[in-house]
């Protein structure tokens, strides 16, 4: 990146003001990355998610625009761009207009420390994971701003709910990151990933029972922070019309949901980097480019699997009540996260280099659970009518 800029400057293409050129190049590149990666990702996820829910509910989902409805997200985007941009009377117009951008910003900023592979990372900050959790919390500012500026009671309640929810769940989320920091002694994304191996028993999720629980708590907290079902109280359409998004229209409305779908990737990436071994892939080749591509694929497969699980959870669980939401956070997650932290500290004190045996036991346990799960799935499939099995596309 820097060498590229230096080369450009040295070639004399852009005059001599190298910092200006650097800023320009970064600006253009980030625009390209945003338009070329983040935006289509959010769009495609929206289509995949609708298909996944549909299948879970025995429906078909969008299947008209493009092959199997694949271009539905583009059609939706065009539709929203064409819609009128309404700013309600008596609303705080400036804040009302800024709010969606803040939410999108909270979704774009974490990409800076996204560890796609061993060298494909924009900036390997030595406070990477801290940066990631803090900038994703910017969502609460945007949502609260949207709720307040709309001058609408539904929106206000939605925004306040969002604030309560995101601020609460920051605590168990942060506390669940601590065990990993304790084990690796670093906050950098790459440092944490390098502390793990490529094989599942070397992942931090299977390092000890405490990290396993921490991974689950972090995942659920991240879902809550991302306003995902079962924690989508801020835009609960059955109680609050659409919550903080009630007064929005057109592209501004879509921005909120783009950020939500994009956040799925961030959630998956945090879990993958912290607990699932990140981009770790066995050294099969000396070629650095090929190696990086393999790592990129590994990372993305893991993240997308988690994205799928988020959709699956959303298709399964109903929305929780606000008091249940708070009780889950404060009565269950926070104390358990504290116990995790202390437990991991003791564990690390006893086995500073980790306990390899535990990894195998935990992996075996996970496989047993997976087998039981598959048995249950087969049990439920058997109870359905025979001719309805395995006909995936329509």
């Amino acid at each position, binding site marked *: 990146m820097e060498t590229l800029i230096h080369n450009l400057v040295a070639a004399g293409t852009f005059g001599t003001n190298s910092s200006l050129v650097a800023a320009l190049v970064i600006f253009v590149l980030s625009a390209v990355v945003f338009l070329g990666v983040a935006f289509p990702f959010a769009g495609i996820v929206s289509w995949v998610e609708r298909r*996944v829910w*549909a*299948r*879970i*509910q*025995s*429906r*078909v989902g969008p299947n008209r625009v493009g092959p199997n409805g694949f271009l539905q997200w583009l059609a939706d985007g065009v539709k929203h761009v064409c819609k009128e941009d309404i700013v309600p009377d008596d609303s705080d117009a400036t804040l009302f207009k800024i709010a969606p951008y803040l939410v999108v910003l909270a979704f774009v900023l974490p990409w800076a420390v996204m560890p796609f592979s061993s060298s494909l990372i924009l900036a390997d900050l030595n406070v990477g994971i801290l940066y990631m959790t803090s900038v994703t919390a910017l969502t609460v500012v945007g949502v609260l701003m949207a709720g307040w500026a709309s001058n609408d009671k539904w929106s206000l309640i939605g925004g306040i709910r969002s604030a309560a929810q995101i601020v609460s769940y920051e605590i168990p989320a942060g506390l669940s990151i601590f065990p990993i920091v304790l084990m690796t002694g670093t906050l950098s994304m790459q440092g944490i990933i390098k502390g793990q191996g490529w094989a599942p028993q070397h992942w931090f999720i299977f390092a000890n029972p405490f990290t396993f629980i921490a991974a689950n708590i972090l995942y659920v907290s991240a879902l809550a922070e991302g306003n995902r079902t079962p924690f989508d109280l801020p835009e609960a359409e059955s109680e609050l019309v659409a919550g903080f998004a009630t007064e929005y229209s057109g592209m501004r409305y879509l921005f909120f949901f783009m950020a939500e779908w994009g956040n799925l990737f961030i959630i998956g990436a945090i879990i993958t980097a912290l607990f699932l071994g990140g981009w770790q892939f066995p050294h099969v080749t000396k070629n650095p480019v090929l190696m990086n591509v393999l790592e990129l694929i590994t990372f993305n497969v893991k993240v997308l699997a988690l994205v799928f699980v988020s959709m*699956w*959870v959303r*298709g*399964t*669980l109903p929305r929780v009540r606000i008091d249940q939401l708070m009780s889950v956070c404060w*009565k*269950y997650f926070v104390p358990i996260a504290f116990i995790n932290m202390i437990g991991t500290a003791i564990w690390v004190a006893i086995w500073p280099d980790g306990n390899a045996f535990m990894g195998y036991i935990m992996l075996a346990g996970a496989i047993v659970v997976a087998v039981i*799960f598959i048995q*249950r*799935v*087969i*049990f*439920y*499939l058997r109870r*359905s009518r025979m*001719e*309805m*099995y*395995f*006909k*995936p596309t*329509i």
Partner: protein
Amino acid sequence: MTGVSAYVQNIKQTVSTIFEGMAITASHFMRKPYTVQYPDRMAVRVQDTLPFRYRGILEVDLEICTGCLACERACPIDCITIVADKDPVTKQLLLSQFDIDIAKCMYCGLCSEPCPTGSIHHTTEFEGADYSLESLIRRFVKDPVIAYKPKKGPETDPRIAPILNRGMAYLDQWAIPGSDKDAANKAAADKALDQPDAGDAA
């Protein structure tokens, strides 16, 4: 102690219900959707799959309409407009207008009940969407037609017989459950349904 055990019990219950729920949805993920992809991508027209006696958009068979206005009077919301006059020359009843405003109609079926000949009846058609209210008015009379003159006797028009027959067959088949003549009824009903004109001879 109960507090702690309740706490642990809660966690256990949460985990097990989510586990079970996820298994159910995963099994649904591998099943075929039930969705009928109306209006295109269908094996048969939806109209053909609707049940007998479906109350769709009304239709008037002007050839057997007697011009008695019973339907107009029966309609609670006045969506039927009939103009029937005596032709001064031939002294016959002439129907010069028969409109049904399907924008108003609520498909209650009250109009088809008093009709002596079964001329006004529901179809299985239900797609009435249009761009203007005007075009939702169904005008059945293009040129004035001579009203049907019923014959004397209990059974008047051959055209009604199959309709009646079908209705009776339907009742026999479905509306008397558990009767010991079920099989026979069903055979008779099937026969009647297959040959709607069987009543002609009777």
